[in-house]
Structures are given as structure tokens and as C-alpha cells.
């Protein structure tokens, strides 16, 4: 084996592990448990940083800029970039690597693009499991980047130790509209592209809006591409994450358990839709020949206890 191939071997093992846990089942579960055992034995304590926000806000560039600063400080950093799968074809176009510089000789970095596949929610089912494997492989800082779209925020908020919501300079009124759901779960709201006109205005609008609430998130104004404010942002992330202790790892396991449950239900829904059972049952319920309670049991195995 040539000298340059050996360090790729570790990355290859991790990469294949992630592929393996993308196929749910007992083998995937065993692999995840083995990774947890490694992390406990080695006293790992990875910090998982979620990044969410609208398409075009600059999440990939921001993750890359933060990773560069952290790597320069000697930390081992990974980026998991999640993009949606097409509902029609099942395919996906994963383009986040375009904005992330390649470092082929650096074993202290790892980047993986993940498609949401069958998950009806836009955080991929495999995301939590992937963070568990990446931690076991010795990465200290794990960025998980996902397109912000409704339910995805709940998923990433469950998984991340620290959650960033990333906005572009044009985020004015839309930001206001998103606020209720997303800003409740954000630890840090980042206005990116500070080098563009309007960024300061967006920052000021957010600050005045957020100042009213208790437990308001931190605010940051940065430029990922110009490198402005990135070191300060990383310091804020570390500060926010400092209290996680062993909670980080149990949080990831909780997120995986929820993802596995959601994956199971999503599969049942796909099956009932494809087989026509869902449509048939709906017609029968409308016609009065089947009950809702009986149909939930028949279609999804859901048994509801009688009302108290």
C-alpha cells in the first residue's frame, strides 16, 4: 500500500460504516452500539453543531469556514451535509462539496453528503447514527447542515448540541415569518454575508425582534466567504456547548431512536399508499363499513386504548 493510501483507509472505514447504517436493521443497530462503546471507552466528547436555514443562506460556506478555523486550532472536524431526495425519482443532487475545499491529505477532516432518502421529514433518518459513527472515529467537532423546512428544524434541534439558524442579508420579513418556530429552538442566529448590503439591517431587525423574548438566542453577524467574525462565532458555539457533558451522546441516541421510529412509520405509510390499502380503507371509512380505530390498527398496528 502506498504511503498516501493508509490515511485514506480510516476515512474509507468510516464512510462505509455510514453507508451501512443507511440500511436500517439489526446489523446497523449493532454497528451503532459498537461505535457508542468505542466513544465511551475512549472518553470522546464530540460537539455536534447543527446549521439550518433557507436555501442560499450560506450554510455550506459557513460550515466550511468554521471547520477551517477549528482545524487550524488542531481540532478534528467533520461536516455532514444533508440534502433532500426527490420524491419522484428517489435520486438526489448533493452539491455541498462545491463550497467546501477538499483536503485530500488531511486525516483530521471528513465530509459526507447525505440524502434524506425515504424520510418524510427533511433531516435524514441516518443523521444521528452518522454523528455517532463520526464521533467514534475520533472527530471532536461535527457540523450537520440541513435545509430548513418545517419539520427538519425539530429533527436537527433534537440532534444538535448547539443549533445555528443561518440567514442571508435579504432575510427581512421572511425571517419574521419563520421566527415563531425556528427561533425558539435556535441557540445562535447567524446573519451571513456581512460583506453584502443589507446585512447590517437584517441583523438590526433581528436584534430588535429578539430582544423582547426571554432566553433569546445569541446573534452573530459574519461573512463565511470573507472570513469575518468566524473565530468569534466558533468561540460562542464552544461556550454554548460547554455545558453538554455526557448529555451530548445520550442526545444523539435519543435522536436516533426517534429517527428509527419515524423511519418505521414512514415505511408503513409508503407501503399502505403503494398497495392501495390506504385509499381502500379511506373509502370504507367514508362509507361507514370500517372504523377509524380499526383501520389504524389494521394499517399501522396502532392500538388506541379506550378513553379514560
Amino acid at each position, binding site marked *: 500500500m502506498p504511503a498516501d493510501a493508509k490515511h485514506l483507509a480510516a476515512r474509507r472505514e468510516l464512510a462505509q460504516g455510514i453507508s451501512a447504517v443507511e440500511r436500517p436493521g439489526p446489523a446497523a443497530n449493532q454497528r451503532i452500539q459498537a461505535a457508542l462503546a468505542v466513544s465511551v471507552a475512549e472518553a470522546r466528547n464530540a460537539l455536534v453543531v447543527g446549521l439550518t436555514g433557507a436555501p442560499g443562506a450560506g450554510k455550506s460556506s459557513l460550515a466550511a469556514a468554521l471547520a477551517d478555523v477549528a482545524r487550524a486550532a488542531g481540532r478534528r472536524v467533520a461536516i455532514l451535509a444533508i440534502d433532500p431526495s426527490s420524491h419522484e425519482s428517489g435520486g438526489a443532487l448533493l*452539491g455541498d462539496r462545491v463550497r467546501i475545499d477538499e483536503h485530500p491529505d488531511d486525516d483530521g477532516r471528513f465530509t459526507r453528503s447525505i440524502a434524506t432518502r425515504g424520510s418524510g421529514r427533511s433531516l435524514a433518518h441516518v443523521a444521528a447514527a452518522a454523528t455517532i459513527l463520526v464521533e467514534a472515529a475520533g472527530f471532536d467537532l461535527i457540523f450537520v447542515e440541513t435545509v430548513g423546512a418545517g419539520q427538519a428544524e425539530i429533527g436537527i434541534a433534537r440532534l444538535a448540541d448547539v443549533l445555528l439558524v443561518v440567514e442571508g442579508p435579504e432575510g427581512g420579513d421572511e425571517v419574521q415569518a419563520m421566527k415563531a418556530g425556528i427561533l425558539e429552538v435556535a441557540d445562535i442566529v447567524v446573519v451571513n454575508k456581512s460583506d453584502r448590503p443589507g446585512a447590517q439591517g437584517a441583523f438590526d431587525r433581528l436584534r430588535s425582534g429578539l430582544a423582547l423574548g426571554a432566553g433569546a438566542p445569541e446573534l452573530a453577524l459574519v461573512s463565511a466567504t470573507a472570513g469575518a467574525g468566524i473565530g468569534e462565532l466558533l468561540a460562542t458555539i464552544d461556550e454554548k456547548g460547554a455545558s453538554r457533558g455526557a448529555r451530548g451522546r445520550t442526545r444523539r441516541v435519543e435522536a436516533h431512536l426517534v429517527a428509527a421510529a419515524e423511519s418505521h412509520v414512514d415505511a408503513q405509510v409508503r407501503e399502505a399508499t403503494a398497495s392501495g390499502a390506504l385509499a381502500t380503507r379511506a373509502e370504507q371509512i367514508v362509507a361507514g363499513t370500517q372504523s377509524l380505530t380499526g383501520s389504524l390498527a389494521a394499517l399501522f398496528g396502532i392500538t388506541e386504548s379506550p378513553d379514560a
Partner: protein
Amino acid sequence: MAERTTPIRVLIAKPGLDGHDRGAKVLARGLRDEGFEVIYTGLRRTVDAIVAAAIEEDVDVVGCSILSGAHATLLPKLVSSLRASGAGDVLVVAGGIIPEADRPALEQAGIAGIFGPGTTIAEVATFLRANARRR
């Protein structure tokens, strides 16, 4: 062999120095619509960067678009680097402007498929489904 239950993963790369990525983007979009998971890496990647990305992404296929005329050196280097990194089972295919006379040497070097101008997305998809590794 068992039917695969997950999409085939394809890295679309543009090695070398030419800046024409329209073909690569059309192919990336087209393969997505054919049900592939396509990782697009952008322009001007080195062979080492493509190999590392292919390994981290655990892809089944690396597709290179080359319009610069550098195929004769870059593609064999890519195949040998993948093999040296334990990823010799990754299918390597190429598209772009590749003269007929250069094909035998490239095939000899392990380039599994060469798609010239006029190849349809469906033809590429069929080839990849037939030839990508099973898992």
C-alpha cells in the same frame, strides 16, 4: 445477486483546468431524475481530491467530465489512485471530448465507459445500473 435497496451513488467530477461544467451539471441533474444520488464536486479538482471525495462519499461510480484534452493523463492516474486507496471496485467513466484514437488506451487503463457528445442520460443510466458494483 440481491436487488440493491439503496440508490447508486455517483461522484461527478471535473478534473483539470477547463471551466466548462454545463455538461457535468446536465448529467448530474439527469442522473438524479433517474434515481441516482449524485455528488457534484465543482470545477478544477485534483485527482487526489477526487479520490478522497470518492472514498468519503463511498460512491459506486466516479464520472469525469473532461473537455481540456487532459484525459490521457488524468483518467489513468485517477484509476490507479483509486486502486491504491482500496477503492478499485469503484466504476470510473468519462464524458466529454475524447478522440476515438485515445479510447483503447483508456479502456486498457480501466476506464469502464466513455460517453461522447450525443449520449443520452438514459444510456448513461442504463450503463451504470448494469456495471456499478452490487451491494
